[in-house]
């Protein structure tokens, strides 16, 4: 489940936040924690990279049913 390229930025952020919360819980086993930590660091740097490379894309939409005057 770790390498999902189609995940949106929002989903990545949500996963990361979930991981951070889970890491704070005591019930998580050490092995699981290590996995979570690894995934969390990955996600964090992925998100950072996405933000750094982001460029605003603007598209103008023209409605065809406009203009009848």
């Amino acid at each position, binding site marked *: 489940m770790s390498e999902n390229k189609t995940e*949106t930025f929002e989903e990545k952020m949500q996963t990361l936040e979930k991981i*951070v919360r889970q*890491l704070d819980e005591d019930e998580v086993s*050490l092995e699981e924690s290590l996995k979570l930590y690894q995934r969390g660091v990955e996600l964090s740097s992925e998100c950072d990279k996405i933000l750094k490379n982001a460029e605003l894309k*603007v598209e103008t*939409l023209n409605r065809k049913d406009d203009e009848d005057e």
Partner: protein
Amino acid sequence: MKIHMENSKYLSVGALTKYLKYKFDQDPYLTRVFIKGELSNVKRHTSGHIFFALKDGNAVIRAIMFSRSASGLKFEPEEGQSVLLQGRISIFESSGQYQIYVDSMEIDGIGMLFEQLEKDKKELDGKGYFDAGHKKPLPRYPGTITIISSETSAAYRDMITTLRRRFPLVRVSMINTMMQGRGSRQAVIDSLDYADSLSSDVIILARGGGSIEDLWTFNEKSVSLKVFEMKTPVITGVGHETDTTLVDFVSDVRAATPTAAAEVAVPDTRDIQDNLSSFDTFMMRSMSKKIEFHRNQLESLSNYYKLKNPELLYDQQTEKLATLRMNLDTRVNTILREKRYRQNSIKDKIEYNSPRPMIERFKEILGESKARLDEEMADTVTDRKKQLSSTIELLNSLSPTSILLRGYSFTAKDGNIVRNSETLAPGDEIETTLSDGEITSKVTEVKNNVRK
């Protein structure tokens, strides 16, 4: 226009109408009139012309506003509105009706508009359309935003700048829309409808400041209702900080300005990056805390006295085993004893019923019987022996030898004892046996002493 009374004293309708139209058209008062009245029977033609009537108490005048003039309208003419208008009076020849050709028109008194606005506001509020429960939450990290605004406006440029600065990750779709004046109401509604169909994450409906008339589109009930019905979250940013329009009440988030709307719509990249680094720190700290915790746990576990003194682990078991073993032995012995006892009693019983004494007795009887038999036998033998010797004595006494010794002899012929003389004939050779030998003789004569 000339009238030839000589040809005919009757005028055609067309001629009269033309004459009247001429009179209207060149009258200095009628070519530029200012009238106020109430709109009635408003009809929009597809070509953009507007036909209506202007009422005032009991009087009515027909009016037409051609599209070239109507396009400059700052409001949507509607039934019952009080208006101020300017135009010229003339006659429409085909119907023979005089009417006013409107050049410009404005709402008579903004107060009327506000009255209507207050009514609409109260109505929508009463229906609960302003309730927080109807407000759709905004996504934290929107992927797509649709902006409804005028492409050439400063408001639009401000929004794009803000979005680029704060969250360039978002994709913006722009629906260029007429944001003021006549036709803007429908244009905004249509754009909202279109924007909702794009299923973007957020819609921003925004325009910059302007006169109250310019902003009035956003006070329209129909526009507000459309905003309320939207499936996509809508952020409104209309005018300046001080302007609050009806759509602001029904939108999901009201921003004071277009720039503020763009700010509300997206998070700030710098904040996210701060967040990310604090996540990193947090995760790191959580991890080391966890490892520390486990290390401590491991340590305290390895210090556990039983691990230090492993024999403690099995002492109990050893003891238990010994006890068990002892119990087992005792138990087995008991069982054995019981069995042996039982066996003995059975043995006794068997012994009691044993045939051996009987066998012994029979053996005894047999012995006795045998002894008696032997005794009997011996007696019998002795008797017989005695009998035999007396018989032998008798026999001896009867033996021919003794007889011969007494002088007797016996004669035999061919080995056979001769008992009768008749068996002999003269000439027969006979042997006579005496006690000490034999003689052979020849018979010379036979005399029978017959007593036959």
